[in-house]
């Protein structure tokens, strides 16, 4: 057991820490030796270590979920939800967030050095799954010395991890909060991921993944991210945000039109900007491995059926979906809710009204805060009673 509390004396300024484990057995049969996991903590563990909440991040997230990073100076990706007095109240709870296995922000992934060769793994990195990602998180939680998590919470792919926690380690979680997620990808969700992967692989700079000493496949990765951003928004939110507005021009007239395929519409330049920005912080091979892990994920796999899988769960559930989310539509959350009911599990569920599409889980702070705060408070009362 380690005591991490001195490192979080200043709740606002945070640092990413790394823990190393000797080996991690994977679903594909390979064993990673050694394996690193990057994580951050906010708030303090109570005396009997019953107030810990694990936040599981979405596809392109990282361990920096809250506070201001001491090195980069940037706020965390869910800083509006995690902190003193916020939904995940760090005055009450100790919040932990780790970078997923296969990622590129401190945890072992395809861009890490393979100790056997001294070179980056690239495409020799073993195929990973969501259960593998969760297994490594469990090792971290064990090492910190937390006997049972108060909650595991996350949106999108983070929700998949929360679901996996609930059935893989039922005795370890009092509550799970899967937000805007699914127990398995539909053909449409796999299709969008495949477009992203093909964009990367079609970029000559990808070079079968061995680009680490050369130019990365920036064009392919940027296109992949552009597609991603379209799926995260909704028709109405794009209409509101961009409409048909032009860059530096009032109207599109025949005389003024460029006909040069430059980014004339605001939505074009926005997507290009987000694409190029993503290239600076994300590894293309991680994109391939993580999207594949999402596509492989099926909570019922090896467990008979979805209801049979969820029968193992002992946690309370709070599921949240968003009305305009067409990437992870509410019906997918409802499938999980119905399966939980069929096994008489404790479940709360709300489809929140939002026009922000899938991005709503990062943007609809006020209503999520209300739900999460009440749910956590009543769970904590049960746990400590």
């Amino acid at each position, binding site marked *: 057991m380690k005591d991490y509390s001195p490192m979080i004396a200043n709740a606002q300024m945070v640092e990413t820490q790394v823990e190393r484990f000797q080996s991690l057995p994977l679903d594909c049969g390979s064993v990673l030796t050694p394996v690193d996991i990057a994580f951050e903590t906010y708030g303090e563990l109570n005396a009997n270590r019953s107030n810990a909440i694990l936040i599981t991040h979405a596809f392109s997230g990282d361990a920096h979920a809250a506070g201001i990073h001491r090195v980069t100076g940037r706020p965390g990706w869910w800083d509006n939800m995690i902190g003193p007095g916020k939904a995940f109240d760090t005055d009450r709870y100790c919040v932990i967030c780790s970078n997923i296995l296969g990622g590129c922000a401190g945890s072992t992934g395809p861009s890490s050095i393979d100790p056997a060769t001294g070179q980056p793994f690239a495409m020799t990195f073993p195929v990973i799954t969501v259960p593998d990602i969760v297994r490594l998180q469990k090792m971290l939680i064990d090492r910190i010395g937390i006997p049972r998590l108060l909650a595991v919470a996350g949106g999108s792919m983070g929700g998949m991890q929360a679901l996996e926690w609930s059935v893989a380690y039922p005795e370890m979680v009092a509550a799970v909060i899967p937000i805007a997620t699914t127990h398995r990808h539909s053909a449409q969700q796999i299709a969008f991921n495949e477009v992203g992967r093909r964009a990367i692989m079609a970029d000559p700079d990808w070079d079968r993944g061995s680009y680490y000493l050369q130019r990365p496949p920036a064009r392919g990765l940027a296109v992949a991210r552009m597609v991603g951003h379209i799926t995260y928004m909704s028709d109405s939110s794009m209409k509101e945000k961009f409409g048909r507005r032009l860059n530096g021009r009032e109207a599109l007239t025949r005389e003024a039109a460029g006909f040069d395929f430059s980014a004339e519409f605001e939505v074009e330049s926005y997507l290009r900007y987000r694409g190029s920005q993503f290239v600076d912080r994300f590894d293309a091979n991680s994109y391939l491995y993580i999207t594949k892990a999402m596509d492989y994920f099926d909570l019922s796999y090896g467990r008979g059926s979805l209801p049979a899988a969820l029968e193992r769960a002992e946690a309370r559930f709070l599921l949240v979906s968003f009305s305009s989310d067409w990437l992870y539509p509410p019906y997918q959350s409802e499938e999980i809710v119905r399966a939980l009911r069929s096994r008489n599990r*404790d479940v709360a*569920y709300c*489809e929140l009204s939002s026009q922000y599409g899938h991005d709503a889980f990062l943007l609809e702070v006020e209503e999520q805060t*209300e739900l999460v705060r*009440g749910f956590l408070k009543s769970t904590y009362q049960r746990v400590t009673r």
Partner: protein
Amino acid sequence: MSTVREVLERRDYATIGHIIEPKSRVLDLGCGDGALLAWLKDNKDCDARGVEIDRALVQKAIARGASVYQGDMAQSLSDYPDGAFDYVILSQTLQQVGNPVTILREMLRVGHRMVVGFPNFGHWSVRLSLLTSGHAPSTSLFPFKWYESPNIHVLTVLDFEALCAAEKWTVEHRIFLAGSSRVSAMPNLRAEVAVFVVRK
């Protein structure tokens, strides 16, 4: 029918409180903002769950810590295994559901007992209203015009007794209320609200 809810929840929690045993597993159909669920959890240590169709009410219920989900009553019931609850409560909308007998049978499949509350259409004020005005009754319990009323299956105390007899259900408790006081004699004429506790 907020009146029924008021009687059962705010004005007289004891009504339901006396019926439901401590530490019971309870499902509240149409649970509103979860006030009753919270009361049952806090005062009776119940494992209390609820279903509610109105999004805003679901949000309030979850915010107060209740295990409530947004959904349709009939579909929710059909998902549950037999005997999942000790009590299934339907405290305000029996007269508003499309197929009340199906709902009641499902309640007794999913729960060992059901607690059913409804406004009594046999109350003297309803009868008087129809008799004197010649219009569809308009009273404090049934305040709607016929064309805007959500109450599509109005019933009396006698109607419910007859249904229980026909279905061979056992009525364990009958609670009749007028205002905040109990009614003992002539309930079909005098009770504004009836609460039945029924088992198979």
